[in-house]
């Protein structure tokens, strides 16, 4: 048996009908593996925020999930416009979302704060004009 489960998804930009499907799939997988509901929920919330950010802000990207016995590592990598000031972007309420996207309920500027709140480790690497990579580590509770 492999030492861990590796999953990969392509996340389509600006598609709000498919948005969330990578996270739905990871959630189903974790649930099937018997991970505790509270832990599944924390992973789902933080991954969804990263997935939807790629849909809205980065014209899509790639998501991966590596599930180990004691933790899951999620990455969300895009080749979008990047984030100039990560510290500012992390501030609750900061958002560059357009009016169109706001009319769908996005743009509270709470996505990155939610990731930080729900993941045990949240690393954001970004270069303007090159892209953004978010890495989320969630340890399963005992």
């Amino acid at each position, binding site marked *: 048996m492999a030492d861990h489960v590796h999953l990969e998804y392509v996340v389509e930009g600006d598609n*709000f*009908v498919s*948005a*969330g499907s990578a*996270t*739905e799939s990871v*959630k189903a997988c974790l649930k099937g593996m018997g991970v505790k*509901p*509270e832990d599944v*929920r924390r992973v*789902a*919330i933080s991954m*969804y*925020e990263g997935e*939807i950010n790629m849909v809205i802000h980065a014209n899509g990207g790639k998501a991966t999930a590596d599930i180990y016995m004691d933790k899951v590592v999620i990455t969300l990598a895009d080749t979008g416009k990047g984030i100039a000031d990560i510290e500012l972007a992390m501030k609750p309420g900061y958002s560059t979302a357009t009016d169109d996207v706001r009319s*769908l*309920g*996005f*743009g*509270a*500027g*709470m*996505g990155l*704060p*939610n990731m930080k*709140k*729900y993941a045990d480790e949240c690393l954001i690497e970004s270069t303007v004009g090159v892209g953004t990579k978010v890495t989320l580590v969630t340890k399963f509770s005992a």
Partner: protein
Amino acid sequence: MTVQALAEMLSAKIINNADFTRQVATGYAGDLLSFVMGKAPADSAWFTVMTNINICAVAHLADVAVIVLCEDSEPMPGVTDRAKEQGINIISTSLDIFSAIKKVLNEGQI
């Protein structure tokens, strides 16, 4: 209280009955999806007027027990089918969000 009891209390229309025996532990009100994601507790009734397809992903991923569409809001196309696929309870009431919550609290149910 069950979703069934909540639907009756609010004289709500059934949009999707995935499992109305599910227990509603608490509630959350709001339309901005990241607030809901970050703050709605598991097994809550989510009171909103937001009706686009993204409410399904949010409710499902945050383990919301039932979406309560207020002000007679009609779900947008695709929402009901998605709710069926994902097993999400959705009801719709003519009450505004404040009145709906007031009713639930007055009847001492949450």
